[in-house]
């Protein structure tokens, strides 16, 4: 029962945050100088009068402010994001067809970061103060300071231009028309560079976090007790140290979800990856603010969803968690 209450509470909170984001988007359109219809239509107002009229009617721009907000919230809630003037297509279609590519990229990057980051962090902690620790710590410090889009460009330079190993652009080989397993392998080849690039920064974060967390748990009394009892070292690490040290990582992962989505904009721009990040960049270039705001709202919703999942995972993994808190 308590679990249910906890989940319901989180759901309500998620909806409230989402509502806040939609209101924020609404206020942002209002905050711009000039005609909001022109902002929504994009192209700095250089669209035909008929389209502007349609935007005005659609968003109820001739009504009072409160009513406009109500119309806007209702529109977003029913997934009516309007139309992109530049692309002459519904915004929702543009986003839904790009979403899978972004999910593939971000989830792969997240997987790489978690796997590599945690194993390196544990390795560093096991050899604390000696050379593997030094090397890993320095590497983490370096990747923590490198701009993501720049490391992507340098990766293209090295692995696509100098050494022709991996494709630099897109998600599939243009004109190759692969089927089945070939198509899958082709996508994976295209995925390696962008996913690793996006993952690098988070690898650095997970390394630091894991290392610190393991070092802290390593010195606790129950670990000493386990050793005194003569439990084999491997088992102490698996059952006693890692289980306790890795819990904070779940929280960290959910906090980082938002940044991962932001990083996707840069990565997709560098690697011409056909996801919503690239869509946001195109919207920027074309001053298509309605599309940009829609991407903003959708990515925020995704992050809220990730956080919700992380909360649930946490509640399941850690029996100590106080449900309902």
């Amino acid at each position, binding site marked *: 029962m308590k679990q249910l209450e906890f989940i319901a509470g989180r759901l309500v909170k998620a909806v409230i*945050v989402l509502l806040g984001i939609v209101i924020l988007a609404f206020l942002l359109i209002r905050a711009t100088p000039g005609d909001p219809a022109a902002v929504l239509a994009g192209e700095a107002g250089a669209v035909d009068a008929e389209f502007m009229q349609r935007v005005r009617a659609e968003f109820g721009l001739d009504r009072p402010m409160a009513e406009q907000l109500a119309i806007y919230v209702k529109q977003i809630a029913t997934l009516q994001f309007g139309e992109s003037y530049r692309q002459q297509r519904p915004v929702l279609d543009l986003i839904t067809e790009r979403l899978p590519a972004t999910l593939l990229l971000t989830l792969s990057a997240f997987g790489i970061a978690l796997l590599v980051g945690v194993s390196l962090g544990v390795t*560093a902690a096991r050899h604390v103060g000696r050379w593997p620790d030094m090397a890993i710590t320095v590497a983490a410090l*370096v990747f923590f300071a*490198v701009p993501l*889009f720049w490391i992507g460009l340098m990766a293209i330079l090295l692995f696509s231009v100098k050494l022709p190993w991996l494709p630099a652009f897109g998600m599939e080989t243009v004109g190759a028309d692969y089927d089945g397993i070939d198509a899958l392998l082709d996508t994976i080849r295209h995925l390696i560079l962008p996913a690793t690039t996006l993952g690098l920064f988070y690898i650095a974060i997970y390394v630091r976090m894991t290392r*610190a967390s393991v070092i802290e748990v390593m010195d606790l009394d129950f670990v000493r007790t386990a050793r005194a009892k003569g439990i084999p070292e491997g088992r102490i690490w698996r059952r006693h140290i890692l289980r306790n040290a890795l819990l904070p990582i779940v929280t960290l992962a959910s906090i980082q979800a*938002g940044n991962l989505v932001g990083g996707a904009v840069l990565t997709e721009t560098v690697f011409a990856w056909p996801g919503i990040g690239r869509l946001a960049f195109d919207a920027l270039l074309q001053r298509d*603010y309605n599309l940009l705001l829609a991407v903003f709202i959708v*990515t925020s919703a995704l992050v809220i969803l990730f956080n919700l999942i992380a909360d649930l995972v946490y509640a399941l993994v850690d029996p100590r968690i106080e449900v309902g808190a």
Partner: protein
Amino acid sequence: MTEIATRLVRNAVGVAGLVFLLLLVVLALAAPLLYPGDPWRMVGSPQLPPLSPGFPLGTDALGRDVAAGVVHGARISLLIGLVSSLCAVVIGTCLGAVAGYFGRWIDDLIMRFTEFFQTIPSFMLAIVLVAIFSPSIGSIVFAIAIVSWPPVARLVRAEFLSLRSRDFVKAAVVGGQSPLRIIFRQILPNAFSPIIVTGSLMVASAILLESALSFLGLGDREFVTWGFMIGAGRTMIRQAWWLSAFPGIAIFLTVLALNMFGQGLNDALNPRLARKGRA
């Protein structure tokens, strides 16, 4: 104070960061002397590779000096990094202090507000803010500050919660000092060191954020920035790698130095926490 200074000096990594930053500041200040005039004008033959006579970092397709761009870019990066972090620290400190001092529903309200801003994908919000308010130094600083203050608010709130019940605060309350005075004159000075450490680390992330924004074309077009140079050199990556390589190295070294300095500062200000927990 001298004790803090000695501890900072003993921390070689922190000092190395500080020395690099000082050199960078000198370079940024001297930019108009080293490369007078517009750094983005044509001065040499196009596409000169690095180490060409007179152009140590090469030139771009229009014969513009990459070194001049990198040196002038330092001004904008440092300026935006410092000012936006300062704004974020001020916003975060005020909100965190009020939340931690008054507690109860005010604390609840401010913390929900903070969580809200932490949930929003910060880079997306920064993009939207700069795009809608049109790119300028002002709008970039504003956007970075808006997405960066929440960690400061949480930190300051936590400090205030623990300091709130100390005897010297109780004495000040009994003595009839106004809440504003207690917050700023009594409690805040005791919470300074973690705020300073967070602030100095924030400058690093602000510089990264600024470079990412201008890479996407959301920089102030009046000035040359590192991110803009990388974005402009991107399409030339096959023919002229140096156009995007050097500004990127500049960002990397600056951010690394700031992180090293921030960490050194942390070790110096919180000696008990040093070497424990933080890598």
